[in-house]
Each structure stands twice: as C-alpha cells, then as structure tokens.
C-alpha cells in the first residue's frame, strides 16, 4: 500500500501545491487531475523519489520511503515524459538492458511476448530510431508489462497513442490491477480502467 501525506512542492520561488494526501491500496488506481502547470509531473517525481521531499511523508507498506528506498524502488515502475529508450538499440535490447538496470533478468521470449502484446511484432530487431512516435511509446509501455513492480507511476501514458494502442495499454494496466497492482497516473483525457478508480484533483 502506498500512502502519501501532506506533500508540498516549491519550484524556484513558486509554490506549486501543498498538503497533498492520498492512499492507494492493492488493485486501486488513482487518476491525478489538474490544470497545466499545477505540478502533476512534479508530484509524480516527488512520489517516486526523484525530487527531494521538503515536507510530508511517503510510506510504502507502512515504512517510510526515505528510510527504505531499495524496498520501494524494487516495487516501482516509472514512465515519464522521456521514454528512456536508446535510439540505436532495438526494442528487444532496450527491454533487456532496462530490466537488468532494474535488477531483473528478462528472457528473449518474455520480452518478445511483451512487445507482441502492444502490437510490435516484427519490430523487435529494428533500431528504435526508425520506429514511429507511437511505436516508440508502445515500446516504452511494454517495459511495464515485463515489470514485476507493484506500483506503476505513469505520466500521461495515453498520449500519442491511437485507439488500438490505447486499448492495448488499457488491457496491460487492467491485467496489472487484477493482480492486485496499483497505478498512479496523470492523463488529460477521461480514463476508464477496471478495479477501483480514484481521482485526485491537484490545485495550487
């Protein structure tokens, strides 16, 4: 379980948000809403631990994330604005290297299956450089399907995807939720997923 209490964030001189609290239980997803520039991405980065905590607390399984970062990170998958793909590597190589960095080994078979699930069959051995924008995003998303992390933190995962790809992604996320996973995401559009959905409106 993830529980976040009394987070606040200042960027430079500007106070973005303060006193943000929510909890996320297994099988639940939370849609973070708010206007542009209100600090949705900043909140996600704060929750992941990319930014230093100024105020408030983040707890994972009732333990402070600041004091037990390894345990939290082992259960965390983050997808940001940048896709973390190497353009000169193939989707397959990217997935395998990413998994190793995250501390797991992924077989070629598993990686191929994950890519196929997001409709990238036949693209496994091309350099990412030659893929379309949507295909690149799907490659990055297939990293999630391979991840064993309990908590997914996704920044605008549905952006730049066509209808079929959106459905495929929804399926991947639903599968994760069915296995008692948790998802924290931002999205400009309405989100419909299975399981118990919450929404949190961020304002200054």
């Amino acid at each position, binding site marked *: 379980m993830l529980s976040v209490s009394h987070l606040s964030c200042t960027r430079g001189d500007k106070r973005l948000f303060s006193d943000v609290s929510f909890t996320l239980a297994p099988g639940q997803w939370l849609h973070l809403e708010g206007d542009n520039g209100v600090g949705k991405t900043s909140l996600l980065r704060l929750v*992941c631990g990319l930014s230093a905590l100024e105020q408030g607390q983040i707890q994972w399984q009732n333990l402070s994330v600041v004091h037990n970062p390894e345990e939290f*990170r*082992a259960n965390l998958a983050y997808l940001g604005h940048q896709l*973390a793909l190497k353009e000169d590597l193939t989707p397959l190589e990217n997935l395998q*290297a990413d998994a*190793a*960095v995250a*501390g797991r080994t992924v077989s070629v078979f598993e990686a191929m299956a994950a890519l196929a699930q997001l409709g990238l069959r036949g693209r496994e051995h091309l350099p990412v450089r030659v893929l379309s924008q949507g295909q690149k995003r799907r490659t990055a998303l297939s990293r999630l399907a391979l991840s064993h992390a309990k908590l997914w933190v996704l920044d605008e995962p549905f952006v730049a995807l066509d209808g079929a790809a959106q459905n495929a992604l929804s399926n991947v996320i639903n599968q994760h939720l069915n296995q008692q996973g948790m998802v924290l995401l931002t999205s400009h559009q309405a989100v419909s997923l299975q399981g118990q959905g919450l929404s949190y409106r961020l304002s200054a």
Partner: protein
Amino acid sequence: MSAFLAIVKRDLTLALRRKNEVITAVFFFVVVAALFPLGIGPELNTLRLVAPGILWVGALLASMLSLGRMFAADHADGTLEQMALSPNSLSVLVAAKILAHWLLSGLPLVLLAPLLGLQFDLSTNALWILTLSLLLGTPLLSLIGAIGAALTLGVRGGDVLLSLLVLPLYVPALVFGAGAVEAEISGLGASAHLSILAAMGLVAAVFSPWASAASLRIALES
C-alpha cells in the same frame, strides 16, 4: 552485478554503433601529439625531454573531450531517471558508466601511446613506462571527470565549466603520470610514481562513484 555489466554492455554497444565519437577523441590525441613537434622544432633531444608532458597533457585533453557526453545522453532520454529509480545502488551503476567511459576513451589512448611515443624518439623502457602510467592514470581521469560531468549536467555552458572544474583536479594525475616517464628517462626508476598513481586510483574508485551519484541525484531534482 548483472546491472553493472548490463550498463557497461549497453554503453559499449551504443558506442560501437556510433563509432565516430570514440574515433574523434583518439584522432584528437594523435593530432595534438603531432602538432607539438611542429611548434617546438624537430630537435630530437628537446622532443625526448618534453614527450612525457606532451603525451600526458594530450591524453588528459582527449579524455576530457568525451566527459561532457558521459551522462548527457542518459539525462536527455530519461535513462538516467530509470537508473536513479533502480533498486541497485546508483553508485554502482555510475561506476559502470565510468568503466565504460574509460574503456572507450582511456584504453584507446593507452594502446596508442607507445606509437606516438616513437615519434618523440622515446627509448623502449620509457615507452613501457609511458604505457603503464597511462594504464594506471587514465582510469583516474575518468573517475575524477565523472564528478565534474555529473555536477555540470544540464547546466548552462556546462562544457566550458566542466573543464574549469576538472582540469585543476587532474594535476596530481598529470604530475605523477608524466613524472613516472621522466623519472625512468633520468634513471631514477618509476615505481614510486606508479604506486602513487595506483593508490590515487583506488581512493578515487571508492569516492568518485559515490560523489558522482550524489551529484546526479541533485541534477535530476529539477
């Protein structure tokens, strides 16, 4: 450990698919070494005297040339974020980046140095010591440089700033590296120099990944 190896492998694969970056640094080293005799004059006695210093300064500049790119690409494409979020210690992952950097920018210089030393009419013994001093010293350059590269990541005018930060810290490596060759030439023996170089490398190997990782986390905060 598998994460460490995976990062080394990834960086090497990427460099092999974009060979020009490695080749540029090596070529730079060759050109710099060839320019000095043109500036100083072809007198072999003089050249023998200045060779250790010139080759070491050349190696120093060549290895610095590629420092700016050490973390920049990973920072730009988001890979660095994923590394910071890995349950593996970021210091270990950074150590892998440093090793890859040395394999790509330090090792070629080490292998090339004896060839360039011949241009300066160095004796066989001196060539050996030159190669050995570079073998022990260039990892030190990558280790110290990593801290500078991490500190200047995403900073305006980062590349120029990087050289200002890193070059003064390179002084001990330069003194003992070039000093080893000079000591060999003058018959004093280079073992003391080489031991100190190795000792400094060990200290840096412990401290630098940690300091670089801390700097990278700071760079990722904004």
